[in-house]
């Protein structure tokens, strides 16, 4: 299958729904090891994304992804804003001009998104950040032949849950040192919503 513009819209809508529904949960995760705004920031950003892309006419997948990127960059703020913004900007650039995205191109896009976030955040896998969800998802999808909803669900879930055991060395949770262990990384949980929404979108389109 290939991701069409309408599916990207659906992906964003589903992500927004999950984020709005879990706004308080995300905030409470961030209150535990950060500053308690992650839910508020993501909810503000994705609400705008959906307002921007729903009903709009996009010629290409890269165009809509660029708008998603710019909206997140301009509305989320904090650490998550530039990171998610960078991710979608890289994803968009990587599929530049493409009307729709096949799995191979998507994976290349994810790889560039991941590299972009690492560079922007000066971070690596294993530091208890959303990188810890994006990296395994990218890796597993690379092995698959086509979009695979179950694989996405599972990988994102396992990766997100694993962040509980990591001692943070980047982001605000790093200030807590050892005390950060035992808590989920809020950014990984929002990324988990992003990827499960993608999985649901794929499932709908399979």
């Amino acid at each position, binding site marked *: 299958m290939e991701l069409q513009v309408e599916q990207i819209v659906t992906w964003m809508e589903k992500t927004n729904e999950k984020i709005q529904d879990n706004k308080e949960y995300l905030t409470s995760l961030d209150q535990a090891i*950060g*500053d308690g705004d992650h839910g*508020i920031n993501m909810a503000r950003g994705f609400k705008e994304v959906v307002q921007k892309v729903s009903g709009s006419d996009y010629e290409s997948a890269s165009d809509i992804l660029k708008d998603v990127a710019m909206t997140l960059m301009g509305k*989320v703020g904090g*650490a998550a*804003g*530039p990171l998610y913004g960078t991710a979608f900007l890289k994803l968009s650039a990587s599929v530049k001009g493409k009307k729709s995205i096949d799995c191979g191109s998507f994976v290349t896009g994810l790889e560039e998104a991941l590299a972009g976030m690492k560079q922007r955040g000066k971070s690596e896998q294993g530091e208890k950040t959303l990188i810890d969800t994006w990296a395994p998802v990218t890796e597993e999808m690379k092995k698959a032949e086509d979009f695979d909803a179950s694989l996405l669900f599972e990988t994102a879930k396992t990766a997100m849950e694993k962040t509980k055991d990591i001692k943070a060395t980047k982001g605000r949770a790093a200030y807590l040192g050892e005390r950060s262990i035992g808590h989920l990384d809020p950014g990984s949980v929002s990324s988990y919503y992003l990827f499960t929404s993608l999985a649901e979108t794929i499932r709908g389109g399979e």
Partner: protein
Amino acid sequence: MKKIINNPEEVVQDMLKGLIAAHPNSLKQIPNTTVIVRKGAPVPNKVGIVSGGGSGHEPAHAGYLGEGMLDAAVCGEMFTSPTPDQVFEAIKAVDSGSGVFLVIKNYTGDVMNFEMAAELAEAEGISVEKVVVNDDVAVEDSSFTTGRRGIAGTVFVHKIAGAKAAAGGSLQEVKDVAEKVVANVRSMGMALTPCTVPAAGKPSFTLDEDEMEIGIGIHGEPGIERKKLTSADEVAEELTQKVLDDIKFNSGDEVAVMINGMGSTPEMELYILNGKVQEILHERGLTIHKTFVGEYMTSLEMAGCSVTLLKLDKETKQLLDSDSNAPAFHS
């Protein structure tokens, strides 16, 4: 949560409206942004100074707008770094052609958003330099981690960088003196109560009636250690000692002291703390050039305080003392 607010999601917008209404002759808001610029900016031939960050630290940052201090303050959402487009607007608004200097507190979000804005500005031919303030000794400084946070010491960077720019310093000279301040300023904070972000509705941590939290940041983050509440003298000892341990102070060094209230601690308590801090510094043989007691970098209605020491040299001392009409910078 008891607050004098309207819609919890719109506190920043509402605050800025009231801020501009209060200071119509000295401040203006760039339309459709949360950027506050002082009237008269850009000042011809002067390096523009921009700072900002999440809101909730008032009087930081808009209170430091004024001659000899900041030219623009970028006000993010509650405790949330402003976005690159906002910072970019601020940079454009204060560039006189002599370049713009960014004072950034060391938080991942602030650093990333301000850096992206700097990239946007440079792409348009504006020279931008920056300093990242990391005065909080509660947090370990390590190149493998996020590093120390920027807290109340940032206000000294605003003042001294601002004074250098006002005195005609070049972008590089402003950067140099700002880096000197960053290298010589250290802070340590504590809290008696947490604070509540309006849209979150509940505090980020709780403390028992007899507990205090040492090493808190300025965003309602939990600190590094929870303890039984002690006397003001013991709090002074603990915070001051941590600061003194972090950089080398020699007997005879001149320092500026800031006793900063986190939001709801009465000035009376800050002065009580100051009494002991000064005693400790005198014993240590330090010369106290100037003392600032009050609310300079708050965390909403958190109760608590921080102690900041800035080691001075001839240049920074003179720049610290130079005139500024920024309303929130007074001792």
